[in-house]
């Protein structure tokens, strides 16, 4: 009798836990499916072309199920791309330098003090970054450049850069640490200076990890909604310089979704933006897999 109940229990838990694993697959597919279902309405129900959505800047969808508006999201896309690009441009050199400092120049200070500090900052909620950006950075930019408003691509870029700096730094540090020590010893043995070792031996060897870190940072920047929405100004126009306000995909979804009619053209167009964000994050994962697969350097994050 006891034997039998053990046997039964074994199968029960095996089944239950396998179901949980399957559920996660179903959940992910469901999210993808719902996004495709809601987002494709712009093209199927309302008959807009993908070309119009991606490249037209004429954005005036109708907030009803009649349709007939226009759904060119180019401004939002350009806003997203330019802010993330700027953020990456600012954050990457600093992150690489900080990562090199942590792993090559002063590993002791790095593991004791720098690393925990950086990891602490990965967890800071993005609204706090946004709020500080709004109350400190935006007025500072306004006064510094003598503008009417401080909301700008620059403000968004800086806020995002500070946000993704810890992400990139910790991934790149792991990558640099996983470069075998023999490489360094061999180079030093040949008389190379530390900078030569870093620049010519360590960094090329850590390249896949470095790119993975940068892409992870980019993914985080792309999906960030509220922090950017707070400082970008939400003005629907192409940015003329990095000091001009604009808007982006996530800010549009965050601010307009609540007020739009479910299933209307406006609502559907916003869903299409969400679908685009989803596809972009899939693309980032794909790129990371390609890089890691090619470089053959396995990341070891479990430690």
């Amino acid at each position, binding site marked *: 009798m006891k034997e039998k109940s053990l046997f039964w229990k074994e199968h029960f838990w*095996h089944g239950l*836990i396998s179901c949980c694993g399957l559920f996660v697959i179903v959940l992910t597919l469901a*999210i993808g499916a*719902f996004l495709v279902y809601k987002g494709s309405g712009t093209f199927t129900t309302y008959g807009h072309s993908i070309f119009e959505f991606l490249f037209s800047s004429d954005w005036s969808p109708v907030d009803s199920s009649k349709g007939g508006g226009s759904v060119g999201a180019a401004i939002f896309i350009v806003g997203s791309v330019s802010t993330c690009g700027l953020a990456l441009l600012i954050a990457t050199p600093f992150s690489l*330098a900080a990562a090199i400092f942590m792993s090559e120049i002063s590993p002791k200070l790095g593991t004791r003090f720098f690393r925990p500090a950086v990891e602490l900052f990965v967890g800071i909620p993005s609204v706090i970054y946004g709020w500080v950006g709004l109350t400190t950075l935006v007025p500072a930019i306004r006064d510094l450049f003598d503008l009417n408003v401080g909301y700008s691509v620059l403000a968004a870029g800086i806020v995002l850069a500070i946000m993704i700096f810890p992400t990139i730094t910790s991934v790149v540090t792991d990558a640099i640490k996983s470069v075998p020590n023999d490489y360094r010893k061999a180079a030093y043995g040949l008389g190379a200076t530390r900078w030569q070792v870093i620049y010519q031996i360590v960094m090329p060897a850590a390249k896949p990890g470095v790119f993975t870190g940068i892409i992870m940072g980019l993914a985080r920047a792309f999906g960030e909604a509220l922090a950017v929405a707070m400082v970008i100004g939400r003005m629907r126009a192409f940015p003329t310089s990095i000091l001009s306000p604009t808007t982006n995909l996530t800010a549009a979804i965050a601010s307009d979704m609540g007020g739009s009619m479910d299933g209307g053209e406006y609502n559907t167009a916003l869903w299409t933006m969400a679908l685009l964000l989803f596809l972009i994050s899939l693309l980032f994962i794909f790129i990371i897999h390609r890089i890691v697969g090619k470089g053959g350097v396995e990341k070891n994050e479990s430690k």
Partner: protein
Amino acid sequence: MKANEKAKRVDRVMTWIFVAVAGFFILLLIAFALLVIGRGIAGFEPYMLSFTRDGIGNQLFNTVYLVVLALLFSVPLGIATGVYLAEYAKPGKVTHFLSICIETLSSLPSIVVGLFGYLVFIVMVGAQWNLVSGALAVSILNLPLIATTTKDAMESMPKGYRMGSMGLGATHWQTIRRVLLPACMPRILTGIILAAGRVFGEAAALLYTAGMSTDINWSNWDITSPTCPLNPFRPGETLALHIWASRTEAIRPDAAQIANFSSAVLLILVFAFSIGARVLGRRMERKLAGGK
């Protein structure tokens, strides 16, 4: 020997650049934390802590309540998924696909998860904005973290644990339940605390699920009533959303002070959880290592 000299000089210059950059960023991070906390304290008035419409007590309560609800969903599912991946899954297409799914979930923009939650838990159910749907949306976000931590912890267990247990005649499930999971607990717990810390600050996913209003009557303990604090089906604005709201709906004159103070509280909460997870993880690990 000229090239040698030059290389040495470049080396020195680069070293200083790295030190300067690292120092600059540490200073920036410290300044950021001090700015947020300092401004919060500077604008602090006792009424801000009150559990009324003016204070942030209700929002703080909502935040904690939401974290608890979210963990109720994500912890069992996350641990089960981790156990499945580490113990039951056979290497193959399905397992590979599952790990890709987990990776996808972990890199989903939170606003997209928020929209999904809005569609499924609010529009399809036909409900009002409520805490449970917020908690469900957020648990989608921290599910991958808990699952990966569990899987990594289980896979790092010494082979001897499993062999010893099975050698004594325990079944696979008994081994998992009585030997492996308890041994992994410190690391899983650390992962859960880190996940909880993330929920505190989440705002984009809650925008259209938990809602932006809160109306609590602290003398009402009828759990079915929409003003009862413990009713999980009432709208509940969290601290992070409160900060966001003060940007968009700044109708009150003290909105900036409230947002400053909320930011400070939120930052301290997140830091406390993050440091707590670190200390706890280290202590439990030492205890286990000592007990061997």
